């Protein structure tokens, strides 16, 4: 490959130098895809008109290997992750920022594909990328591409999901099959050959949350179980409320392929990461209504009521297994690793 082609096709340090190369990178590969009223002026900060009320602010840094995985890529992940952090607070996302650290040598076609998926995820979530930044780091110093997104959201009147509102008898719902993101990424990273069958669930949940909030249900608590899986969120809930939780394994959505792969790797699907799952706690009387509302939304077609909050003591998460037995569910330590044999 000639030197010219290298500069044409790959990220070089000059792209981060702030000069003409930077301008070309931005105008050729970044800005056209994200164009919107807030971003277009390219001022140092975006200026937003915000109605009176409560605002949510969140930020998250994203690294993932491989940066493109079955069902998504780091760009989609970075948009959805931050949108979801706002959504589970009951907020409607109104603007995101996007900071990208590009590694020297990154293929520009990969960058283009990732910018496309950032744009489409933002569109899906109806949120503009209002401001951003790019930097370039030397080869082997940046994992290809890392992204930080921050998000602003508006919380509607009367909306206040909070752990403190959770009470005995409340129903616990989840919007669909669990463990898919973690298993898809692991499969791609380790070349386990299931990449075509198992896709990450990475998706923006703001629309689904809006539907749920508008359904008139008493929504007490929302969380998107990411790393640590469903187990992590349930453990947080039991700990935070000092109440017990009972969930039924048979009711927790899990596709046969995800179940098979988790079994193969010796992983408990409850502890595997998700990126498009919503756990909702609603008043017991509203369980059916909430379920119907979720199932009406494309991201909630296989939603299910998986369990309830109980006053059993000590406060624990208990799983009624498919076999009819019982065991407790704990927050996993760090990343769960596949077993040896």
């Amino acid at each position, binding site marked *: 490959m000639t030197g010219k082609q290298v500069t044409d096709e790959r990220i070089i340090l000059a792209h981060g130098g702030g000069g003409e190369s930077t301008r070309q990178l931005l105008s050729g590969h970044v800005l056209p895809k994200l164009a919107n009223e807030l971003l277009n002026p390219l001022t140092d900060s975006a200026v937003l008109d915000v109605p009176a009320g409560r605002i949510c602010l969140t930020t998250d840094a994203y690294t993932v290997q491989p940066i493109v995985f079955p069902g998504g890529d780091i760009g989609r992940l970075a948009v959805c992750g931050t949108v979801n952090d706002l959504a589970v607070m009951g907020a409607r996302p109104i603007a995101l920022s996007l900071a990208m650290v590009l590694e020297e040598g990154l293929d520009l076609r990969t960058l283009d594909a990732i910018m496309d998926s950032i744009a489409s995820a933002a569109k899906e979530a109806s949120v503009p990328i209002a401001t951003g930044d790019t930097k370039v780091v030397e080869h082997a110093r940046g994992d290809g591409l890392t992204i930080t997104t921050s998000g602003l959201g508006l919380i509607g009147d009367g909306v206040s999901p909070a752990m403190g509102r959770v009470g005995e008898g409340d129903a616990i719902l989840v919007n669909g099959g669990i463990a898919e993101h973690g298993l898809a990424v692991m499969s791609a990273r380790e070349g386990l050959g299931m990449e075509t069958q198992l896709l990450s669930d990475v998706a923006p949940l703001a629309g689904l949350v809006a539907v749920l909030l508008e359904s008139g249900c008493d929504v007490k608590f929302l969380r998107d179980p990411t790393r640590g899986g469903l187990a992590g969120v349930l453990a947080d809930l039991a700990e935070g409320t000092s109440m017990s939780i009972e969930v039924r394994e048979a009711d927790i959505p899990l596709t046969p392929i995800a179940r098979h792969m988790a079994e193969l790797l010796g992983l408990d699907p409850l502890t595997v990461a998700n990126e498009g799952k919503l756990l909702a706690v609603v008043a017991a009387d509203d369980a059916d209504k909430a379920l119907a509302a979720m199932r009406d939304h494309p991201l909630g077609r296989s939603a299910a009521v998986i369990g309830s909050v109980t006053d059993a003591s000590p406060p624990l998460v208990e799983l009624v297994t*498919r*076999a*009819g037995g019982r065991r407790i569910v704990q927050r996993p*330590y760090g990343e769960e*690793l596949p*077993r*040896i044999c």
Partner: protein
Amino acid sequence: MDAGRTQRLVEKIHTACEHLESVRLMEVCGTHTVSLFRSGVKSLLPECIKLISGPGCPVCVTSQGYIDAACELAQRDDVTICTYGDMVRVPGRSGSLELQRAGGAKIVVVYSARDALKFAREHPDRKVVFLAIGFETTTPATAGMILEARRLGVGNLFALAAHKLVVPVMEAMLSAGEVPLDGFLCPGHVSVIIGCDAYRDVAGKYGKPCVIAGFEPANMLEGILGLVRQVAEGRSEVENVYPQAVSTRGNPVAAQWVGQVFETSPAIWRAMGEIPSSGLDFRPEYRRFDALEQFDVKTGPDYEPAGCLCGQVIQGKADPSQCTLFAKSCTPVQPVGPCMVSSEGACAAWYKYNRAQS
């Protein structure tokens, strides 16, 4: 899964136990330990059945001396360690491999021996040492890796080998006679490789029923039912409730690979010391892959981390909850011994899934 079917099996087990005061069954393998807890099967059994975890968690039975040798190798600038994830966090004399990695040592987690070969081929400038541990389920993969490395002429791949054999340790425990046992729940995946016949002496000579089962809840219940019935009727046979996968003789191809690279040798087991013919060592023709010989390291003495009962736990002499450190200063976040580190370890399974400890 059909909850009705598991229910019926549970009822049969209760019936079979009616006249038995206590039945002490050892699940040899860590995968069974975890599956019995995770599936809730343990909670369905009558009180008279005591399930005891055996020496079948690959990380747990590995001697501390091996961990220390691995850490010593990791400190060499020219060496990259390729290892199964569970090994990374086992504490050794000078910290764990995880700590070494934080200090700059090159440690790569792999999912199979094949990945270590791939890594070695992609990094010809590194000396790659694969931490080859595990039972009959992983030995064929290690042997395959070495045969393939030899065929391809890969000169920078080595194995720190401490593979172990399941049946000799069962027999050693029975000979020692320190743990009263009424039967063994034998691991399906190991048995796929070694076949039913391998347990003949345990059932015949030692008079302990052996039932081979897979890891599905219903299949584990069938295995336990088989054992309880044998105990109740005073029989001692090798029974296979996992016939879809396990044959009488095992897998001849796997046996041939392993036999080409390794020969049976004495092996050091955590807390149990040296057990004759319970491990595998390189055949002379394959010594150039032996990390011990090539790097001139020694596996030091075995010892227990202070206060840790892992050595007792893996022999069924103590339950994890009998360890004074359990769930106090020893947790999955801050493990003291390997039984709390490994996803197959009895202490980790008790901690994660057992309500009683909380």
